[in-house]
């Protein structure tokens, strides 16, 4: 009971901080870091809904990020939507497009398993990147410009910030909902032993595809927001392998398969990343730092920060309730049971 109250208070505090942040810290550099961080928090969290729960590592979700971005850009251009709040109204459209694209992509990719799946998602990613470069309507290598938002220079970042935050809340709620539902439990079962889940009547194909599509929609929406924020979209930028790697790393850092893990991971990493890019203009150092950090995380905290901490607490709790090894207790329990049964 105390835990639950503490959790609720904690969440409320965090939410309040996020909401207040741009009002207190008005430096645009800082708030733009905030926007990017929120974008990645959504992306990592959404990715986790699929990859974290089902155990299928998808390294091609940039497809949805870019598709959402292009959808919004093209819609703004072709439907003559002027800059301003109206463009935010297009974000659900971006999400929808991403979700629709996820269906055939998922159907194809999910025919494979494990590492083949990872490679197929990478291949599909490259297909999209190449298609965007070569197809006419995407504007080729120079891409498309998005409408300029007429927000005042001082508060330019804030609308983006709060819209992103709104999307984040929705995504987290979906993540919690999935985790608590039968759907989520069956996904976790798929992660542990897919064939057995199938043998227990779980409709694995349907579930995996559903999770895949669900994970695509927020990423599409937030992709639209991101490119609107930046002002333009072009293939190398829209479909960037580093995006895929980043969200995976964030989810891993925080704890794959947990709800708060990806959020924590994204918050830490993205702000760090942005800070590094702003301080060190050289992309080389940034790459090296990133790679080294990644390696450190994977090797030192293989299950991520949140599960790592949870394990530590678990161990401390077990040690204080000192007893013999769990095995001894188990054997006696079972013997006791067997004895009673006779």
């Amino acid at each position, binding site marked *: 009971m105390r835990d639950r109250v503490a959790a609720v208070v904690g969440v409320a505090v965090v939410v309040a901080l996020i909401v207040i942040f741009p009002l207190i810290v008005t430096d645009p550099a800082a708030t733009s870091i905030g926007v990017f961080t929120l974008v990645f928090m959504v992306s990592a969290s959404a990715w986790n809904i699929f990859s974290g729960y089902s155990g299928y*590592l998808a*390294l091609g979700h940039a497809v949805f990020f870019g598709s959402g971005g292009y959808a919004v850009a093209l819609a703004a251009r072709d439907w003559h939507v002027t800059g301003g709040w109206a463009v935010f109204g297009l974000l659900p459209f971006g999400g929808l497009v991403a979700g629709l694209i996820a269906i055939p992509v998922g159907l*194809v990719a999910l*025919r*494979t*398993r*494990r*590492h*083949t799946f*990872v*490679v*197929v998602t*990478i*291949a*599909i990613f*490259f*297909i999209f990147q*190449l*298609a965007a*470069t*070569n197809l006419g309507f995407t504007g080729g290598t120079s891409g498309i410009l998005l409408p300029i938002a007429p927000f005042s220079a001082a508060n330019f970042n804030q609308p983006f910030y709060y819209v992103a935050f709104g999307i984040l809340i929705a995504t987290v709620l979906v993540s919690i909902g999935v985790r608590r539902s039968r759907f989520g439990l069956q996904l976790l079962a798929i992660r542990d032993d897919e*064939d057995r889940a*199938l043998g227990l009547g779980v409709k694995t194909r349907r579930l995996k595809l559903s999770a895949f599509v669900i994970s695509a929609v927020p990423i599409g929406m937030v992709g639209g927001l991101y490119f609107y924020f930046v002002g333009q979209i072009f293939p190398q930028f829209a479909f960037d*392998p*580093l995006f895929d*790697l980043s969200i*995976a*790393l964030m989810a*891993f850092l925080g704890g794959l398969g947990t709800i708060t893990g990806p959020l924590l991971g994204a918050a830490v990493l993205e702000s760090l990343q942005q800070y590094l890019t702003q301080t060190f203009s*050289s*992309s*080389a*150092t*940034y*790459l*090296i*730092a*990133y*790679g*080294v950090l*990644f*390696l450190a995380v*994977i*090797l030192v905290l*293989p299950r991520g920060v949140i599960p790592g901490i949870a394990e530590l607490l678990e161990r401390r709790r077990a040690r204080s309730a000192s007893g013999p090894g769990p095995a001894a207790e188990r054997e006696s329990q079972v013997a006791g049971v067997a004895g009673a049964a006779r």
Partner: protein
Amino acid sequence: MSFTELLQAIVDGILTGGVYALMAAGLTLIFGVMDLINIAQGAMVILGAYLSYVLSVHLGIGLLPGLIITIPVMFALGVAVEFCFMRRLRDRDRTQMSILVTYAVAIVIEGVLTAIFGVDFRQLQASYVNSSVHMLGFYLPDIYLIGFGLAVILLAVLYYGLYRTKFGRAVRASLQNRTAADLIGIDVNRVRTISVGIGVAVTAVGGMVFGATNSFNPNTGYDLISRLLAIVILGGMGSIGGAMAAAVFLLVINDVVAVAWSPTWAPLVYFAALVLVLSIRPQGLFGKSAARAQ
């Protein structure tokens, strides 16, 4: 597109396929022995290319002789990566974790290369890079022939090594049953480290040939690794023969499309071919059918 152009494209595809096959063989060997996927293989090829570059431009050592230096260097790199990172991966999600770990290694390599060489494109030069043999109406660029020749030789050596030498048997044994291999006195850790070393060492050769036939910069690794992955998955993970067949298959398609349609669409078709084949046959061309795990 004329028939000769088509044939020329096929020949080109076969020759380049040989080189890609060699690089992919290293990747598939590492997977076969360690159940790990080395995403950094592409970046390592580029690293090999840069090494050859430095040797030829700054030290005046020819491309082929330079291999004497670059091969051991890359071998050492492979051993270092295995020792420092791959060995630490826990058994449960090894393969997937290895993807992330080696992806990170690739990024570090790319970063280091960018820091040292910048993003300008380079290409390896040698007297024979631009000359070609004119045979039977086809142009067979010397460098491709050399590369193909090297690839065939090295692949044969690899095959021979695996099936005829004691070390090769130790490799296959460690693959098939680690405990038994331990109990027979095989130093499984050493076997694995050396295998990874070999798998990476071939990138020295691949890098040299690739660098001579393509312009490259630190970024080129991404495109390369995705192609290599496609080859390896298509050929069936762990199968060197499969990698060879798949390499030739995909590269021929790539070159034919480049000539018949357009060079910019060729890479897309390359990947689309992979996706297509996998959706029909998820285990690749030569992989065993994944019977439902009992």
